[in-house]
């Protein structure tokens, strides 16, 4: 067990995969010589060569499109998109090709492709560098979407994603890249399972990626106020581990979902829809959502307040408990 940053944990996971499976290779802009703008691929080109850690031309469609072709030839490409806001040129290849190939080919052709995307706000950056595009992908049949909140999960999940025979959008909470934590080699949860990171009995608080840390803080503060909040780290956004969430809500009767992405059609909407359907009589209050607003991401001087944080989550918890 070692203590390391989330970025380094992913680096370790990539290194592990590159070492163990010669069919793994990395593609992306600036991932080689530079080691990526966040240094997540630092040192990998030196150790595995430019053929396996490929500095690509500046074209996201090219990155994903060639990954599709590589997968057809038996490779397991791991693509890096430099920032959340730059994934869109690749969306045609992702949605019409990567997501659909298995189905199109009557199950014959697998697409074991991982697309790593640093996502989310809070780093004081400029436009297109702070977005949360997860719902676009989670709405797309054929894709899997996961995100990690701790170095431990980061290490384990990147490995699981690379082993997956389905395409995985792997979302990295960029403002947590430098957060440190223990990395164990304990037997781990399946890639598509949510994790209850704190037990509680009065209310269920669901978060993922960058908001797991503030969600735990919310539970701590709530406890001081006499409320027992259960916190679930969703981890997998597609498929959703509805079972874990519903089991919790059946006990607590109350649910708040938090994410940075815009509210309308965000992950919270789907969870609310499922929970009200499957735990209708257990709900003592409506499912509440604490999310980014339905505006484009604001200039960074506004982001601290614009982003859902501890205060807004606490307010929602209070509101739910008051029902």
């Amino acid at each position, binding site marked *: 067990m070692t203590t390391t940053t989330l970025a380094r944990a992913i680096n370790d996971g990539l290194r592990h995969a590159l070492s163990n499976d010669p069919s793994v290779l990395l593609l992306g802009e600036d991932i080689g010589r530079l080691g990526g703008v966040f240094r997540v691929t630092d040192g990998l080109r030196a150790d595995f060569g430019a053929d396996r850690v490929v500095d690509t031309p500046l074209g996201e*469609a090219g990155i994903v499109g060639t990954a599709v*072709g*590589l997968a057809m030839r038996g490779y397991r490409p791991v693509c890096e998109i430099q920032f959340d806001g730059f994934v869109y040129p690749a969306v045609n290849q992702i949605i019409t090709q990567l997501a659909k190939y*298995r*189905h199109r*080919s*009557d199950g014959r052709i697998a697409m074991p492709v991982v697309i790593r995307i640093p996502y989310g706000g809070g780093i004081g950056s400029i436009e297109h560098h702070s977005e949360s595009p997860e719902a676009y992908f989670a709405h797309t049949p054929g894709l899997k979407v996961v995100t990690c909140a701790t170095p431990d999960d980061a290490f384990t999940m990147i490995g699981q994603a690379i082993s997956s025979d389905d395409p995985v959008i792997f979302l990295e909470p960029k403002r947590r890249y430098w957060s440190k934590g223990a990395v164990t080699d304990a037997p781990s949860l399946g890639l*598509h399972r949510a994790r209850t990171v704190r037990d509680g009995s009065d209310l269920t608080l669901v978060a993922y990626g960058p908001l797991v840390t503030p969600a735990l803080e919310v539970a701590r503060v709530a406890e001081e106020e006499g409320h027992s909040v259960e916190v679930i780290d969703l981890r997998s956004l597609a498929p959703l581990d509805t079972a874990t969430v519903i089991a919790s809500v059946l006990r607590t009767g109350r649910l708040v979902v938090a994410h940075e992405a815009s509210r309308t059609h965000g992950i919270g909407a789907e969870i609310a829809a499922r929970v009200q359907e499957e735990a209708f009589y257990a709900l003592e209050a409506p499912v509440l959502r604490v999310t980014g607003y339905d505006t484009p991401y604001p200039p960074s001087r506004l982001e601290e307040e614009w982003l859902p944080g501890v205060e807004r989550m606490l307010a929602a918890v209070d509101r739910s408990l008051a029902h």
Partner: protein
Amino acid sequence: MPRTPRTSAKAKDRSSPIQLLTPEGEIVRDNKLPFDPLSADLPALYRDMVMTRRLDTEAIALQRQGELGLWPSLFGQEAAQVGAARALLPNDMVFPTYREHGVAWCRGLDPASLLGLFRGTTLGGWDPADANFNLYTLVIGAQTLHGVGYAMGIVRDLARDLLDTSKGGTGELPAVLVFLGDGALSEGETNEAFIWATTQSLPVVFFCQNNQWAISAPYSVQSTVPVAQRAAGFGLPGVRVDGNDVLACLAATRRALRKARTGGGPTLIEAFTYRRNAHTTADDASRYRESAEEKEWAGKDPIARLHAHLTATGAVEPAFFDEVEAEAKDFAEGLRSRCRALPEPDASLPFEHTYAEMTPELHRQLAHHRAHLASLQETAEHAGDRA
């Protein structure tokens, strides 16, 4: 025996397509594309083109009879497809668009399997590994990047000693042959494919059938210069051949594939041809083009010119043509019944093929769907009960 070819009259005009077999059926020489006519099995090429055309004609008929929902006809493009395809080795990989029925034929793909997609029984229909012929791709340009990525894989297989280049004595890589249309040149992705292929010097050949139309858009909507010239901008060689000349297509593709296999990098081939039918059976070409143009191109028929050549040179017995005709007729009849016999898809397949394993939600949805199907069944059995 072919006569010693004379030099093509057109050879001097830089942008005019290279021709090795004239519309009159004469084999000519062009220094820009050296070719030994003895290296080609002309009767076999003739047969391929006739069978390909028959496949096409038959599919159109099946569409008219309601057996297919749609059919994109290759009528007029037989030489381009057969010429390109017959340059391939078995371990080369092909990335077609949706119109390469003639290439499929030459690869030895079961022609009936081409029909499922247009009949609506599948979105694919064959195993790409069977004949090294990928599935049809309907999103214009998307397959160009797949072909490039596949070629990146080949190069890496080589580095990993996964390629047995020693056996068979070729000492060469497999190559990738990517097909695209003239319209596809305008999609950004196609241009990215050129960039990736060139900067990595990949074993890939882009074969563009410039049939001069992208549905209703004449080529002038896409570009002011020939397709082959696009290559110059990306630093890969471009070559323009008469797409109705099976020999020129064969020669150009052979040369480009050889270059690709030996590490010489990619080539863009433009086969200048004509889509003699409407875009698909759902299209009406009379709304946007002149029948005079169609007539003009009827006069440049790719099959007729090889027929003329084979006849003039006496390379085949007259019976040969009858035999091919008879074979095509048999084939067409078989195709018809095999189309009707294509298996109906099972309603659970979309659920099962979305992921490697069904998710819990898909399990739920499939259960729901099965119940729905059962109730439909019931409703059908007790028709009228509800109302």
